[in-house]
């Protein structure tokens, strides 16, 4: 069983440091070989997880939730009150959404999500996060200079628009609800979901679909 011994973990990291393949693909192959030979996992199960995350669990789920919040005010209220409960209406609950907070962008307020300590992210509704979200650059700078960070993503926030940065924790994850674009009146939920980008739900995108271009 796990020892929860911090210094033991550090010591094992040092031990392994020069004994593992440097190439990440070979290193992962080593891990897989050991786990399969030990009977901890079947190779076919890895294929199943890959299909689950490629075809089922991903940002399309979050986009569906956002689109619903645009067309159904009662749902939006439930989402803002307790997002972890609200996403169960879609059966989207799962990894890292046991505690989930939805934060809404408005004309004068923008929201940006980061995990400064690691990579916390609402996996079950947004899938695996993009590499930039986990980069040292994003993690270090998002809290100190969010407007500069947003400019790198092509989002220039007017001075009068405030920006609130949410630092995720192991327990609490966030979902940004972007604003519904003008020009989408009469669109149904499917059409609306199609214009919700992954980055808009992290907060590094602000102006969606119909308003673009």
């Amino acid at each position, binding site marked *: *069983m*796990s*020892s*929860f*011994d*911090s210094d033991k*973990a*550090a010591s*094992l*990291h040092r031990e*392994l*440091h020069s004994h*593992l393949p440097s190439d*990440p*693909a070979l*290193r*992962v192959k*080593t*891990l*897989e*070989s*050991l*786990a*399969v*030979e*030990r*009977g*901890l*996992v*079947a190779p076919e*199960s*890895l294929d*199943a*997880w890959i*299909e*689950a*995350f*490629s*075809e089922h669990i991903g*940002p399309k789920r979050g986009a569906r939730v956002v689109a619903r919040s645009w067309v159904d005010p009662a749902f939006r209220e439930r989402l803002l009150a307790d997002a*972890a409960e609200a996403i169960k209406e879609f*059966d989207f609950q*799962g990894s890292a959404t046991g505690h989930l907070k939805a934060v809404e962008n408005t004309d004068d307020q923008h929201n940006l999500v980061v995990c400064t*300590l*690691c990579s916390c992210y609402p996996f*079950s509704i947004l899938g*695996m996060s993009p*590499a*930039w979200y986990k*980069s040292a*650059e*994003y993690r*270090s*700078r998002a*809290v100190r200079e969010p407007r500069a*960070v947003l400019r*790198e*993503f092509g989002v220039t926030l007017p001075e009068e628009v405030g920006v609130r940065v949410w*630092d995720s924790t*192991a327990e609490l994850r966030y979902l940004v609800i972007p604003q519904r674009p003008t020009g989408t009146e009469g669109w149904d939920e499917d059409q609306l979901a199609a214009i919700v980008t992954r980055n808009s739900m992290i907060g590094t995108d602000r102006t969606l679909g119909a308003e673009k271009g």
Partner: protein
Amino acid sequence: MDGIHDLGGMQGFGPIPIKTGDRDFRDFEDWEKRLYAMHNSRPARGITIDWFRHAIERMQPGDYLTFPYFKKWCTNWLVLMIDDGVVSLDEVKAGHVDTPGPQAAPISVEQALKINARSDTCFEVPSDVEPAFRVDDAVRTRRVRRRIT
């Protein structure tokens, strides 16, 4: 404790690697997908989110800052498996187990989705202890340093 992982507000980092790091899971490299699948298979016993994270925080700092994300996770899983005892340090160095055991039964995509749906862990811990502080209380913070061995 102070650690290499505590990056919030740290200065000196450059542009965010958006162009090279914007892919969704389905466009990841094969080894990245495989590692994430392995992660979801939890190949060590007694793993908690806190233990997984803390063990990563004890990586060699140079490795922590330079390894691709999933290479960190891969290295960490090997450490956690040795710590758990399901494989030995020598087996990891050799890349193979000494005596292969019975093989694990495969799971289907539907089972994977069910396992995911069940993992919406609630972290609430009931407590009748009054919080030491309230919103708007004035507090004094102290920097506590711990010797890292």
